[in-house]
């Protein structure tokens, strides 16, 4: 489903900045709270109109077994290209791609990654990631250590709670549901 292209690929055209106006009010959904909510509603309704196998996963409770299924079916359903980037993205660097991005390294504070599809970071995310930057709220952001300053999916912006960012967290992914960004552990 995913095809890989090289850096030199012509498809890698700069994206237009289509970021819709996002009111500050929407910004400050504290993620920690949302996690609590997510844990409370064990019977998560999964909205999967665009999914081919939508029947199979509707109204399933989120368990360790089917969390993988959810990621596969819920998020990466559209066929698009992905780009690999090896190495750390340092302060001031930015990476944009029309498709999904897979980064083998850290995204440091001050760096920015933007993709029209999903973003997978095999490292720490400390900067800003914007998945589905053309407005798709079906995109997700995954990182081994998800401690961004700000996270954007589609036209939703969320700020992570202030505090000690040194905490070593487990792999997590962020996704959108009911217009909010949720963060769940990936197990």
């Amino acid at each position, binding site marked *: 489903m995913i095809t890989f292209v090289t850096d030199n690929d012509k498809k890698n055209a700069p994206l237009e900045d289509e970021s819709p106006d996002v009111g500050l009010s929407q910004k400050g959904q504290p993620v920690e709270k949302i996690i609590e909510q997510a844990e409370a509603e064990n019977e998560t309704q999964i909205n999967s109109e665009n999914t081919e196998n939508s029947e199979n996963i509707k109204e399933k409770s989120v368990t360790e077994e089917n969390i993988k299924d959810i990621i596969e079916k819920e998020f990466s359903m559209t066929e698009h290209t992905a780009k690999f980037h090896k190495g*750390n993205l340092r302060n001031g660097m930015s990476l944009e791609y029309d498709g999904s991005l897979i980064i083998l390294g850290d995204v440091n504070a001050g760096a920015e990654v933007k993709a029209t599809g999903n973003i997978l970071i095999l490292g720490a995310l400390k900067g800003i990631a914007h998945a589905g930057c053309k407005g798709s709220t079906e995109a997700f952001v995954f990182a081994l250590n998800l401690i961004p300053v700000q996270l954007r999916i589609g036209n939703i912006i969320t700020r992570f709670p202030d505090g000690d960012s040194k905490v070593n967290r487990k792999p997590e992914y962020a996704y959108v549901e009911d217009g909010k960004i949720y963060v769940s552990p990936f197990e």
Partner: protein
Amino acid sequence: MGEVIVITSGKGGVGKTTTSANLGCGLAIAGKKVALVDADIGLRNLDVVMGLENRIVYDLVDVVEGKCRLKQALIKDKRYAGLYLLPAAQTRDKDAVSPEQMQKLCENLKEEEFDYIIIDCPAGIEQGFKNAIAGADRALVVTTPEVSAVRDADRIIGLLEANELSSPSLILNRVRPDMVDRGDMMSMDDVTEILAVDIIGVVPDDESIVVQTNKGEPAVTVESSKAGQAYRNITQRILGNDVPLMEFKQEESFMDKLKKLFHKG
């Protein structure tokens, strides 16, 4: 063939000039022929820190503009044979020199049979920075254990890598071991985890640096100075010798010992 080392940081005031002066002196003490180049045109300091301000006749801009020969502009240090300073111009600005001219200057210095050419880079990421790194073979990034300095160091390392100066070494300056122990200051491990580069030295915060800088005699020359010892160690590592990183053990005061005694009881 000589090696050109650029000392940079991004943020100002973290100790680039002090580091340049100390490493220059340290290498000269070790018997090497060293040229210190002040690339901070318009805001020169290295001559003052070295105590050579009153000997400046020609400067870097004069050399690149062909107003004098390179040898005429090089100031011989008053203490160590083999140590020379190429001062920056004070009445000009960074645009007076281009990266190509700096590259040529570095090559000319190498031809003068210098073992090490140390370039003191200005703060910032603009023209002055581009000039300073143009002719460099190797970069040392100076940072202090503060988030702002570490952020800037991260940016600088990214820019160095983009300019084919990969794997720069890090000098962590102005560390206060007591604050690190209390968890009030980033430790060496915290900084290296963020920046993911090799560390070449840790320099403790030391009053003698201020005293020696004001005197115009780098701290590396003072046997009793802790920071001086740290710089001597870095010098050894530049020369390729394996020296373990300094351990900062707080000397226990009498009161501390007394307190401990009571706690035990």
